[in-house]
């Protein structure tokens, strides 16, 4: 759910006015970015790995309906049950009814963005089911009553002192703020929940069509506990997260941990195929996979935005984004923050105006596209989203400006237009009499003036300068 239009601006301002937030987020994304840089230091190898992963994901999306059908068949052949949920409401209804039917009262959950997307916890709690998030970061934000602000580090915005306060409140005992104490506390408290839980709910990094398996990459081990201890296991799978076979899964394992945390492989990587076999003494007795559409089919039809379905939610694009580093995840207002959120949210939720303005949360520096292990052209899609927004907005002037800006990006043919634009800017540049006059009639301009001035226009354009330089070179060469 998104807050109303205009709020992105307000939320960003609020975030910028909280310097501690900026420091916490920036410090961590910087570290993650460096770890990824080290893990991807071998440029040739990285290129090969990314090409293989991109190919596997592109192929999977191209034949998604077929793979979904194969996954369903193979998963059910191994004793799993597959459900299709067209939207959030039906997904939560399926889960609630499955839990009720099995008499499950206490649920432990692994980290899953899809369950955030459908706001599962609220729905389950409304049905009288106790839900405990068990990923340390997710538990922290559950205790705080917040939403994740990063795809893989949901509590990135929390300091150890915030966390200590939350844990002291939950446990009723005083704690010190050392990482060791806080982790030991979480281990002890959550262990009790694991051992008492009737059902486990997890997400899925990938589903393998050929074998009907679910693949989970985790570091803490809570993912293993959630999928091993309770008698019932519900998996929430985003409809697009399929790979064809184990070879493709291996290709994904080569890129996902490196892009996400700079690890060669996460501490745990589990491949789950059906419920426990006869005679096994742990593992769930029943396994249900709930496949969520919730706008993804529409994305499949949208040729330009279709590559977004390749996304493996590694968060590399967040960690390099200068806008994300400043405003943090909550400012984006939806489930998915950062560049991927800015691209994904408006297409998943076309009816929500607020989602569209996320496209403005970009400097178009393209660092996101460069970081993406599956080659999603995020910056181009952001421009495209802006263009779509422009055609939706009735203001003709804005549309014109956008067209000029876009054509400016297209290269030489538009050169004339951009020259004209330079002329306009020169006349209207900060400090000119025309500009001052205009600001009087257009309060919007005056307001923006208070925050930033139009850049000073150099006497010569780059192209003119370049020509002159080359001419100089040539004369010298002669």
């Amino acid at each position, binding site marked *: 759910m998104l807050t109303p239009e205009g709020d992105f601006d307000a939320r960003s301002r609020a975030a910028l006015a909280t310097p501690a937030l900026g420091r916490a987020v920036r410090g961590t994304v910087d570290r993650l970015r460096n770890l990824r840089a080290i893990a991807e230091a071998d440029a040739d190898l990285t290129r090969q790995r990314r090409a293989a992963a991109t190919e596997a994901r592109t192929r999977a999306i191209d034949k998604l309906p077929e793979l979904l059908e194969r996954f369903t068949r193979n998963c059910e052949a191994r004793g799993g049950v597959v459900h299709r949920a067209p939207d959030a409401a039906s997904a939560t209804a399926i889960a609630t009814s499955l839990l009720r039917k099995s008499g499950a009262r206490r649920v432990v959950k692994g980290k899953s963005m899809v369950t955030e997307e459908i706001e599962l916890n609220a729905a389950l709690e409304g049905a009288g089911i106790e839900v405990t998030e068990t990923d340390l970061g997710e538990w922290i934000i559950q205790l705080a009553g917040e939403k994740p602000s990063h795809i893989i*580090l949901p509590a990135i915005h929390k300091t150890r002192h915030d966390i200590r306060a939350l844990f002291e409140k939950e446990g009723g005992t005083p704690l010190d703020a050392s990482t060791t104490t806080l982790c030991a506390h979480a281990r002890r408290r959550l*262990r009790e929940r694991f051992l008492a839980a009737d059902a486990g709910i997890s997400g899925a990094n990938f589903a393998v069509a050929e074998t009907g398996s679910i693949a989970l990459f985790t570091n803490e081990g809570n993912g293993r506990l959630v999928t091993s201890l309770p008698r019932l296991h519900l998996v929430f799978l985003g409809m697009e997260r399929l790979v064809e076979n184990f070879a493709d899964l291996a290709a994904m394992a080569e890129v996902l941990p490196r892009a996400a945390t700079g690890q060669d492989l996460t501490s745990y990587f589990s491949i789950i195929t059906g419920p426990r076999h006869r005679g096994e003494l742990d593992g769930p007795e029943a396994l249900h996979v709930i496949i969520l559409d919730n706008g993804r089919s529409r994305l499949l039809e949208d040729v330009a935005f279709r590559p977004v379905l390749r996304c493996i939610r590694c968060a590399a694009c967040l960690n390099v984004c200068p806008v994300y580093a400043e405003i943090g995840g909550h400012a984006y207002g939806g489930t998915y923050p950062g560049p991927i959120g800015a691209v994904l949210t408006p297409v998943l939720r076309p009816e929500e105006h607020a989602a569209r303005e996320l496209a403005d949360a970009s400097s178009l520096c393209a660092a996101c596209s460069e970081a993406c292990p599956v080659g999603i052209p995020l910056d181009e899609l952001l421009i495209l989203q802006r263009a779509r927004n422009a055609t939706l907005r009735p203001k003709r002037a804005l549309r014109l400006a956008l067209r000029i800006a876009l054509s400016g990006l297209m290269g030489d043919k538009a050169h004339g237009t951009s020259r004209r634009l330079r002329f306009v800017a020169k006349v209207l540049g900060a400090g000119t009499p025309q500009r001052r006059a205009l600001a009087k009639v257009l309060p919007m301009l005056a307001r923006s003036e208070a925050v930033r001035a139009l850049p000073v226009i150099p006497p010569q354009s780059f192209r003119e300068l370049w020509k002159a330089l080359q001419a100089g070179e040539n004369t010298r060469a002669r």
Partner: protein
Amino acid sequence: MLAEPEAAALRTRFADALVRAGGEWFAVPDAAAAARVVNDILHAACVSSVAVDDTPGVRTLVTATEQRSVFLSSTVQNKHRFAEAGAGVTGALAGIAATGTLVLAASRSTPRSTSLLPPLHIAILDGKDIVGTLAESFARFAAHALPSQIIHITGPSRTGDIEHDLTRGVHGPQRVVVLCLTGAGS
């Protein structure tokens, strides 16, 4: 069958990657040496209860002492028993040299909990089962007869959720020790 220099190279790569991931490595020539090392580690860690997988080469490795009880994981009726154990000892189907990863499969004789609930996990890995890559390990499984869970373990449990300060053992084991049988003693 790999020639010994290649096998040794794979072992070295595995050991390096494992240690990088925070795991511990011991190369032992044979089962008798493995038993000595395992019992020493358990003694040093003051472990009073040990879960042991019911597989050849593992089930007889750990000896009970006055301070230490040993139980076969396949006989456990209540999962709390695992949670109270100070260590779990398992075998491994394979090791992946590129990442220092142990490959385990859930089964009747090898429950998931042995390598998961106790704070110390000791794995016995036959050096002959070390392969180069994940893809090579995958090739050892038949698509139509997969275990209910294939578990890849790369070092101890870790989290960076508190100010990205890396910590071990938040939910899974704090220590992962691999004993590799090199076959040098046979």
